[in-house]
């Protein structure tokens, strides 16, 4: 899936380190910093973001319920805003796609695309029950954010409130309930009740992360994966195929925001959130130059999205230079993460 380098050679270079008392105290400080970064990542970034996701899912569910009760264009607009809001939080959560979100399939259950028009149309035309529990048993391409997007935005964003049928209403109500009750809430609970401890006890009894290095490499790998997924996959494929039907959120034209938020999610992991420590604090403690490079490159990648002024579905035809520039920035960032940052972790995280 991803390129990666032979970093093992580095581990051979660490023999013969000398033991000075200053170094010992530095090491103690650094070990304490590692623990702090892990704690802050867990509480501020992971649990913080998943908690925000839960709030967004509650709001979305309320907006959809309201739209169901009073199907007005104003309520449709509110539901759309609510949908875009949860997409922002969710895409930022993709900066750390490991643990329950992948182990328990919350990601594919809610964020599978492309949507399956034919089965969606067949389902809506049928008399198949559409309660939340029925949704839970549907294929993943008929669950989650994107079928809901299809209902409330329609092709080309053309949906009007009066055009939403009774079956579509029933489907959208159950879809948003399925997102909230079967996915987002359990995701938060899985983290807070179990996985949190796996992360917090990395290198001290965790069965998932036997060493802290193991955990940090996993976090870096998660950052690199989302960078690659956006640059080499989600942006590149519609771009190279010149095909706007294979973008991520085509009905709402939210695709570019999705990408942008993915990289902000990566940045949140690197910098930390709410004044907590992030990966950057570890890097800066040992190698300020590398920290500068990484921060600058993340910022360059994020800013480069601003040069794409059209919606992504149009930009792949009309702003190809700008799209290519962003993909180049993401490639540079991914290289930094795969090589320098990964090496940094292997060299410096020794417990």
């Amino acid at each position: 899936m991803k390129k990666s380098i032979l970093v093992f050679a580095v581990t051979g270079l660490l023999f013969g380190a000398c033991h000075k008392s200053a170094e010992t105290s530095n090491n103690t400080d650094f070990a304490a910093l590692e623990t702090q970064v892990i704690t802050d990542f867990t509480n501020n970034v992971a649990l913080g973001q998943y908690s925000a996701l839960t709030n967004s899912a509650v709001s979305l569910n309320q907006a959809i319920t309201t739209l169901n009760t009073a199907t007005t264009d104003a309520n449709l607009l509110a539901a759309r805003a609510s949908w875009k809001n949860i997409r922002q939080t969710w895409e930022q959560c993709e900066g750390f796609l490991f643990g329950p979100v992948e182990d328990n399939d919350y990601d594919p259950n809610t964020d599978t695309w492309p949507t399956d028009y034919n089965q969606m149309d067949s389902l809506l035309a049928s008399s198949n029950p559409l309660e939340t529990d029925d949704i839970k048993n549907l294929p993943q391409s008929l669950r989650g954010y994107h079928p809901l997007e299809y209902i409330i935005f329609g092709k080309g964003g053309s949906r009007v409130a009066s055009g939403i049928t009774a079956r579509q209403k029933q489907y959208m109500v159950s879809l948003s309930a399925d997102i909230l009750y079967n996915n987002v809430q359990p995701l938060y609970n899985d983290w807070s009740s179990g996985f949190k401890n796996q992360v917090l006890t990395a290198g001290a009894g965790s069965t998932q992360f036997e060493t802290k290095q193991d955990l940090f490499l996993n976090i870096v790998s998660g950052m690199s994966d989302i960078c690659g997924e956006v640059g080499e996959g989600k942006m590149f494929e519609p771009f190279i195929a010149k095909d706007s039907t294979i973008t991520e959120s085509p009905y709402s034209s939210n695709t570019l925001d999705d990408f942008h938020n993915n990289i902000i999610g990566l940045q949140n992991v690197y910098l930390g959130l709410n004044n907590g420590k992030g990966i950057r604090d570890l890097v800066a403690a040992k190698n300020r130059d590398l920290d500068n490079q990484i921060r600058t490159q993340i910022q360059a990648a994020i800013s480069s999205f601003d040069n794409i002024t059209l919606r992504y579905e149009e930009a792949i035809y009309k702003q190809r230079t700008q799209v290519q520039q962003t993909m180049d920035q993401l490639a540079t960032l991914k290289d930094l993460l795969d090589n320098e940052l990964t090496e940094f972790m292997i060299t410096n995280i020794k417990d």
Partner: protein
Amino acid sequence: MCHKADLLPDDEYDDRLSAGLATNFDLSSHAFTHAIDGLSVRDQRVHELGDQTFESKFVAPPAPVFGGLGPIYNNVSCINCHRNDGGGLPITGSATAGLLMRISQAGTDANGGPLEVNGFGLQVQDQAIFGVKPEATIGITYTEIPFTYPDGTIVNLRSPEYQLLNPYIPITVPYMLSPRLAPRLVGMGLLEKIPETTILSFVDAGDQNGDGITGKANYVYDPYTKKTEIGRFGLKANAPTLLLQIAMAYQQDMGVTTFATADESSLGQEQYHSVIDKDQRELADSLLNHVSFYVKTLAVPARRNVTDPDVKAGSVLFNQVNCSACHRSTMMSGSEPDLPQLSGQRIHPYTDLLLHDLGEGLADNRPDFLAGGREWRTQPLWGIGLLQKTTGAAYYLHDGRARSIEEAILWHGGEAQKSRDAFAQLTQQQRMQLIKFLNSL
């Protein structure tokens, strides 16, 4: 004068290198998903396209992209079963299903393979697109059986029973079922490159060395090349090439037709009526090739903790109790001119790719070409220690009945009975060391 270069002595290799140049050092939950190093720009692109296709969820036709699902299927994408390119979960009939059921009746077909059951083919598709009936659903019940070590320690093993429920038409002949759990995708490209002579050199026909282990190769018919060839892939070594293994997965598991498997799995059944364009090949030829290249060029994860004293002791025990007679540790891959990373590499797959009698406890009693009802192909062990991390929950053996490596060892019977008994005789400390060694693979 001409000197032939000798191989280095064994202790001069880096133990972490599971697969020579094809080794990768990422040990995260994505450890199985990396391309081998040093692919050309073009090869990287093909690998990436294969990766995307591998992850793409197929949808009901007609659809602009990735249409062609079903009408009957077991799952909607490769990745749904091979989680993170790791293994599957032993459940059926849902998006998270990683277990499928083969079916056949007594006798063999014209090519020596299993004989289809009318209306069901050779595999039970337990899901269907909207409005279509699946062939049946699968019922699984487990019975816990306690196993007591000589030292008094008790481990629970769970014995599965499988039932075919709600068949869409009655089955009128006696039939045999065989469950198959999706395996992890480690080192498939290298297994394909192990010379046939190497595999055959592992056969000990007539048990000349008296260790109770013989082994035999499966020879299977390839419907695409129309030749009988040595079987390498599949839990009974019933697929000769990666391409066919993958094409059959598209056809049988997803209901997606390809150039190598052009017929719908539902051909001749009532579900076939809902196939819209019966002549269309649902997976583009290039994409099947890309997926095949993707799987072939996946790197093998490096070993961990190789200097740990317990791991080292476990490695010695692995040989002492003779696990290594079938789970062969070291061999050389053959030549692959286009991909030097796979060519002539010293690899440690821990398999002989042969079929062995594993006893009544594991028997499916369903022959598959030359594989008898008690025979299974030696599972490669590389990557086994990362299964939990990549898959999210680790299940072992052909049907995922074992919830731990220890349970998996204790299920071994038949040719492996002696080794299993020797394992049970070890002290608790030694058993821990052996398992720790396996977890380092």
